[in-house]
């Protein structure tokens, strides 16, 4: 820190500033990128799975329709923390299972009964990048199921007359679907989707469950009491202060999201006749 700043702030304030800008804290600030990325990429996946799920639920083929209903039914019913733990682990061990089929000899498998993976060659090491990607995929799968239901309902809410009129004008089936049906669906889907987004954002606080050094883990580390002079500033349990910062971050994200969704609703409502169109 430059001398003039130390002189300006005085010993107490500059000590505090040095504390909250030390390497540990900088890593904490840097960890916000994981949370933001998980939120945005997770939402993108969720929208993708939501559209696919809604298409399946609306399909003419009976098995496809049942598949869509099965997906939304099961995934919405399982607690998100559980699914968040289950999916990445199942994925990792599933890949290891197929690796083991190719890489491990029968002798190695027989020599290590009950040991997973059965041979070292079939062992995957997942770091932050891989787990982050799996976390985004999990978020996408979980909240895609909710989004599918919302979009499914919104597709049915578009007045049939609009579609009939489009067909009468001679538009092709895909033109009707994308140009009229999906385009008009958004105004009905957005309130529900904004809800799903809010819940998804809250679930990004679970990243540390997958060994990602995210904002919650660092808040925990920084706030944990320290009594060892070798390990830095000695302080009692300060975790509530750090959690409070996270509260404020999530409230700011909520506030920002509301504004974005208001703008999106204005866009989606253009030219669409709805009773409560703003």
């Amino acid at each position: 820190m430059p001398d003039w700043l130390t002189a300006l702030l005085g010993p107490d304030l500059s000590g505090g500033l040095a504390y909250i800008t030390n390497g540990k804290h900088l890593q904490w600030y840097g960890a916000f990128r994981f949370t933001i990325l998980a939120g945005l990429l997770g939402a993108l996946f969720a929208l993708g799975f939501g559209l696919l799920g809604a298409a399946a639920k609306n399909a003419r083929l009976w098995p496809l329709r049942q598949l869509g209903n099965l997906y939304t039914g099961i995934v919405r019913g399982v607690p998100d923390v559980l699914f968040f733990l289950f999916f990445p682990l199942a994925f990792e061990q599933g890949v290891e299972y197929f690796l083991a089929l190719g890489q491990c000899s029968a002798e190695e498998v027989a020599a290590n009964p009950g040991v997973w993976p059965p041979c070292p060659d079939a062992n995957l090491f997942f770091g932050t990048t891989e787990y982050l990607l799996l976390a985004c995929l999990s978020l996408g799968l979980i909240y895609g199921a909710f989004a599918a239901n919302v979009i499914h309902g919104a597709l049915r809410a578009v007045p049939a007359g609009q579609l009939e009129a489009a067909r009468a004008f001679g538009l092709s089936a895909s033109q009707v679907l994308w140009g009229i049906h999906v385009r008009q669906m958004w105004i009905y889907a957005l309130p529900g989707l904004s809800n799903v987004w809010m819940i998804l954002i809250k679930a990004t606080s679970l990243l540390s469950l997958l060994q990602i050094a995210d904002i919650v883990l660092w808040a925990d580390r920084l706030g944990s009491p320290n009594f060892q002079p070798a390990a830095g500033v000695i302080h009692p349990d300060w975790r509530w202060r750090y959690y409070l910062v996270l509260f404020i971050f999530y409230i700011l994200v909520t506030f920002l999201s509301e504004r974005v969704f208001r703008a999106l609703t204005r866009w989606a409502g253009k030219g669409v006749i709805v009773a409560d169109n703003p």
Partner: protein
Amino acid sequence: MLRLTAAAALLAAFALPTAAQELRLGTEGAYAPWNFINDAGVVDGFEIELGNAICERAGWTCTWVVNEWDSIIPNLVGGNYDAIMAGMSITEERMLTIDFSQDYYPPDPSVFIMAGDASFDFGALSGVRIGVQGATIQAAYAEANFAASNTILAYETGDQSVADLAAGNVDMVLADNGYLRPIAEASGGAFKIEGPEILIGGGVGVGLRKADDELEATFNATLDEMKADGSLDALIGKWFQVGPFYSQM
């Protein structure tokens, strides 16, 4: 572009395990001065310096993996890292699942820490709340010897047990002398160490998978070297202000 990045990340996920020259060391990162995360946000401490010195001598490229104490042995066996250096005492129970190198810190007595103005009759402890870190030798010892007439409270980290002592939720904490002594000295009289010194465990060693015999031999040979030339004692002296233990033998 996003799809390309995702594909690259997936490819990386499927890459085969690292080559033999690279070694991952597992540690807790919450047990100063053994191992902790320093103000710069990186792992530091006695075991970090020792581990890096061993790696340099053995010609390995080493990286540190921070893992919670509770799952540190299962994740070694599962292959998340190749060796544990986390102030782990060598015990019979642990030897059932993993192997240890020779010790790099001699058997350390366990001691009691308590409020500076407290006093207890250690001959007949009863009705006392004793804090320990879960899954440690002290936790097992307290459970076996004090649980009948006292309350044992287990914490995830050592620091949490001391924090609850400061808050008055436990009466005393039982832990390694090397961990508690600096806390008592830095507390300015708020904490003191009193009562019997209890010898549990057989020194601190590197935890290794049972199958990795070659790795164990290299660790042992390097530790022999560092004990003989006094560099291990120098590190112990630097972090714990005790010793020398090994170079004069």
